[in-house]
């Protein structure tokens, strides 16, 4: 398998240098940017597979980059990276189309694995993100939902989210639930899709509570 081509967007030069050095051979860094504008230009000029995107960026945040580039390059996958794991920041970027979220304190090996996984089309859930998702989809099933399939998690998906929040890897979850890893990945991707498409009234309220909308 070839090393994923990665574009780094982070306003801290030290951090970009650190990630570049640590990931070393595992990825091929094709470009870097420190703010929204240069990120948009850089992404138009290069051909990365994965964008490592800082949630907080001068000039509109990671969300602005996503909203600009995503329509032009739907194939491009984004992995959100942040030092602040405040719920509203994370969910906003995920809702805007990022395929996963990891904190900056993640180990190099885990980061490399996460990059490869989003490149291959899977979603990357950190325990914290799983916690936010469970929080957002908590409560009773909606009474007048537009699309019940979309507006709530299935029991299995909920179970998978719980296990991720408890610190289990996909492989461990698969073993525990007697599923294939592929099935676990399917569940996780379904949850991500629901999160991005859901118009659920509960989710809106949850977001409003956290000053998201």
């Amino acid at each position, binding site marked *: 398998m070839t090393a994923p081509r990665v574009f780094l967007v982070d306003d801290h030069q*030290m951090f970009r240098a650190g990630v570049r050095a640590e990931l070393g051979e595992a990825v091929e860094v094709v470009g870097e940017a420190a703010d929204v504008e240069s990120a948009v230009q850089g992404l138009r000029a290069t051909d990365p597979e994965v964008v490592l995107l800082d949630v907080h960026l001068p000039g509109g945040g990671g969300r602005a980059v996503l909203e600009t580039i995503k329509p032009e390059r739907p194939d491009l996958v984004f992995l959100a990276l942040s030092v602040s794991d405040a719920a509203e920041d994370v969910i906003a970027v995920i809702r805007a189309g990022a395929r996963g979220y990891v904190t900056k304190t993640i180990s190099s090996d885990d980061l490399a694995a996460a990059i490869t996984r989003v490149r291959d089309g899977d979603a990357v859930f950190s325990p914290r993100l799983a916690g936010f998702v469970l929080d957002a989809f908590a409560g009773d099933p909606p009474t007048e939902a537009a699309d019940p399939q979309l507006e709530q998690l299935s029991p299995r998906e909920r179970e998978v989210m719980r296990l991720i929040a408890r610190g289990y890897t996909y492989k461990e979850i698969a073993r525990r639930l007697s599923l294939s890893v592929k099935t676990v990945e399917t569940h996780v991707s379904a949850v991500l899709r629901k999160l991005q498409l859901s118009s659920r009234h509960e989710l809106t309220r949850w977001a409003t509570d956290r000053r998201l909308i």
Partner: protein
Amino acid sequence: MASRLRLDERSFRLPAGLTRSADDRVLAGVGGGIGHHLGVDPTVVRLALVVLSFANGLGLALYLAGWAMLPADRAGDAPGTVEDRPPSAERAVGLGLLTLGTLLLFGQAGLLLPAGVVWAVALSAIGFGLVWTRTDEESRTRGLLLRVVGGGLLLVVGLGLLFASGGVLSTIGGLGLAVLATGVGVTLLLGPWIARLWRDLTVERRERIRSEERSEIAAHLHDSVLQTLALIQRAEAPGRARTLARRQERELRAWLFDERPPDNAGVAATIGTALERVVTDVEDVHDVEVDLVVVGECPMEPRLDALVAAVREAAHNAARHAGVAEVSVYVEVEPHKVTAYVRDRGKGFVLDTVESGRVGVRESIIGRMARHGGRAEVHTGPSEGTEVVLEVGRNPTREGVT
């Protein structure tokens, strides 16, 4: 030193504990304060003051002295301005009576004023008192309209009588008199509103400046210190430095972004803050990273204390014995129960071999949970890692914050 001085000044002036009551008051809380201090019904005190007022105005003098000298019973609530108090017709009447009494007292002191002036001023005072009450919370009620119109009418009649009676003011010409009357009336009617509006505006502006400053600081710290702390944790820093960086990052982030109810005297208000403390403690003592995820939120209650204590013990155990750098803690708050999972990928152990020897698992975790009507399970095995599952019911009558 400063507090000592203040104490001395106070004890020189007043009996300790005698204050103006903030809650139980008609006018300034003097009657309420004295009543509470003596253990007598405040109404009795008030009646006594009124009766004494007829004895050469003694009661009135006492009241005014009390108003001037007694401190308000809440720090920061000191010399309360009239508009800070709840509205009441009693206060308006009280103000009128007080004015009347004062004028009568002047009369007794030999400063004779025409009877017309005395009554007119007292009437104006009542009207003024009626208008001059707090209106924020009742601005949409009919009572307000009634009060303002009634009060305004009384005020106008009072002022009219005052000027009609001539007296001291007869030297000013007719036009001057009319202008003066209008000016005084408008000032008395609108003055308090303008003052209140101004005060609200000032408060609001202060609040806005404060929150703007805060978000500016938050943005700055986020872009600087938090990033540095994250970098230190990534770098091959010595364990101690990493632990410190982790802890400070957590504290800083909590301060910047959290809006949980503040803790009360060192006691965590919610299960979220209680667990955060546990995690910080464990990270402090051992060089491990504890990944805490909490779904839902609720106020603390005794049974949850037991759960948090068991989580603490389980996390300590994991950090001490598992031999790994990472421990996961996941807690889910549901309407009727709270479930916690403490997990590590460490070496695990055979439960039977340690059960008799170690107090930690059996007593601090399983026993504690059983005593509080909960349950605890330990899933482990050699080189399988360990997961401790804790569950306890919530008091369903208490509503969660979510």
